[in-house]
């Protein structure tokens, strides 16, 4: 069906990425001034008239005919990674031999400069993805390098195992980490995660990668102190590989297809494990039906972690403060979260558990108190939220209030971090978390670097 797409000037880049990926790089659009959200409605009405001739031209093809014939339709086939037998773990993969190569001076600065120039980095130096290194990355597990997890939005590049391995090398990963990355990408490509939206939005949302089960300890994925901070190779490089993959395969290039207004430091890397050893409750993956001994990856589309300091000695007072922090004015949780993630510090979790609050009761207490009166929201916001959040509005004691999510189960509780009276809210977005078991994991090598348990 013919369409005419109206695009504000700011979104030219994203529109171009999408039309190019669909084989229509020159498809015209109707460009209007940016923005539209903060502009008074009478002014928006006024902007329609000068755009009309362009709308009609694009819809009727006057400005389309110059673009030549349409590109033939081809069907993209995707498949889950096939398990191949160990004998095919050759040192030289035919698949790698067929990959496009870049010839560059054998010098770290020259390699970094070339990759940065191509838009293939996050701004930090990369480990050069030589064929030998990429083959080593693949040799740690049994994935078929030619298999694809599917096309990745918004540029719909094929997320083949081989390309994931190239990015994992660049990020500084060891081969033992690779199954975590493959599983995370598979989860991100599941429809409820809405990766297309996360890549293109003005929001700071990014995939938050949470690892559960024994693999976290085996790989040294930090679950304790300085959880979101520096110092742990597995956390740093697995999360970084995810971001590089989103950029080089998915085309989420900042200021072009990635339209985030402010971004968020967690967009460089955001991967951690649940502190299962210090949790009084069943961990996330067990709540979701997996055995405690199964290792899983959960991806959650969220904003930056917002720290919550809480020094109450009673569970209810503590949980009410935490709930109010999760419902902060202006946070994603008030505007669009389909789910909300709470990282509950082990000391906070212990206070709740000692006073008889199991995980379900904790979740319900948070749900009941994580709300904000409409009176504090403002008229314009209230108009938008009445449309976007119709399922999160109710009356409490005669006061119209907005909840952070539709139902208690939409609050995810993960116990993690070290000693101290701190927890963190990771506000959600238009995205639902996805948990998948980690398959094809090779036995971890005792030589895994920087193991810190």
């Amino acid at each position, binding site marked *: 069906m013919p369409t005419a797409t109206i695009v504000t000037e700011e979104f030219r880049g994203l529109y171009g990425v999408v039309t190019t990926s669909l084989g229509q790089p020159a498809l015209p659009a109707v460009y209007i001034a940016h923005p539209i959200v903060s502009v008074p409605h009478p002014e928006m009405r006024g902007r*329609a008239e000068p755009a009309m001739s362009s709308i009609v031209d694009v819809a009727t093809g006057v400005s389309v005919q110059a673009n030549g014939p349409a590109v033939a339709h081809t069907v993209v086939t995707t498949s889950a990674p096939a398990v191949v037998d160990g004998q095919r773990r050759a040192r030289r993969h035919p698949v790698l031999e067929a990959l496009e190569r870049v010839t560059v001076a054998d010098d770290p600065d020259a390699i970094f400069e070339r990759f940065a120039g191509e838009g293939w980095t996050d701004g930090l130096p990369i480990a050069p993805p030589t064929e030998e290194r990429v083959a080593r990355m693949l040799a740690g597990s049994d994935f078929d390098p030619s298999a694809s997890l599917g096309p990745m939005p918004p540029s719909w590049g094929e997320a083949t195992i081989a390309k994931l391995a190239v990015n994992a090398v660049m990020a500084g990963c060891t081969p033992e980490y690779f199954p975590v990355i493959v599983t995370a990408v598979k989860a991100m490509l599941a429809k409820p995660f809405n990766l297309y939206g996360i890549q293109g939005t003005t929001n700071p949302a990014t995939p938050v990668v949470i690892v559960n089960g024994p693999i976290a300890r085996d790989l040294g994925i930090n679950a304790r102190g300085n959880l979101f901070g520096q110092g742990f190779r597995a956390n740093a490089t697995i999360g970084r590989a995810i971001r590089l993959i989103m950029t080089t395969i998915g085309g989420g290039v900042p200021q072009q297809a990635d339209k985030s207004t402010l971004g968020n430091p967690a967009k460089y890397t955001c991967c951690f494990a649940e502190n299962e050893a210090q949790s009084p409750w069943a961990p996330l993956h067990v709540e979701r039906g997996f055995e405690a001994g199964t290792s899983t990856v959960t991806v959650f589309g969220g904003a930056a972690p917002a720290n919550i300091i809480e020094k109450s000695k009673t569970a209810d007072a503590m949980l009410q403060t935490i709930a109010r922090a999760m419902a902060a004015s202006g946070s994603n949780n008030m505007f669009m979260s389909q789910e909300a993630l709470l990282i509950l510090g082990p000391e906070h979790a212990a206070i709740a558990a000692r006073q008889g609050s199991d995980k379900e009761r904790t979740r319900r207490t948070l749900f009941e108190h994580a709300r904000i009166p409409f009176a504090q929201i403002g008229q314009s916001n209230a108009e938008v939220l009445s449309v976007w959040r119709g399922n999160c509005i109710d009356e409490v004691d005669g006061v119209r209030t907005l909840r952070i999510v539709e139902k208690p189960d939409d609050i995810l509780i993960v116990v993690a971090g070290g000693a101290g009276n701190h927890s963190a809210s990771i506000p959600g977005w238009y995205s639902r978390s996805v948990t998948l078991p980690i398959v094809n994991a090779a036995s971890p090598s005792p030589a895994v670097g920087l193991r810190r348990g």
Partner: protein
Amino acid sequence: MKTIKVLSPAAATSGNAVPLAARVATLEGRVVGLLNNSKSGSRPFLDRVEELLRREHGVSKIIRYDKKAAALPIPDEMLTAASACDVVINGIAD
């Protein structure tokens, strides 16, 4: 200087191409769908587009679609319903 070969991390995007739908010659007598992305400002803009399409371009019918959330894909049922249109006008904006 000595050179080395390294593998490109970028992925091929060919194979996703779709054909361009045939354009209509004129909007006169046509059914036009207007898809509101739910961002504030989209509705008044499209209200005015609707008035002008009716008054000056002789469209036979306008069908309005309102997404509930800008950042989620269009619901399947809305996409199916849009097949009643000859042309759809949508938008990418914030």
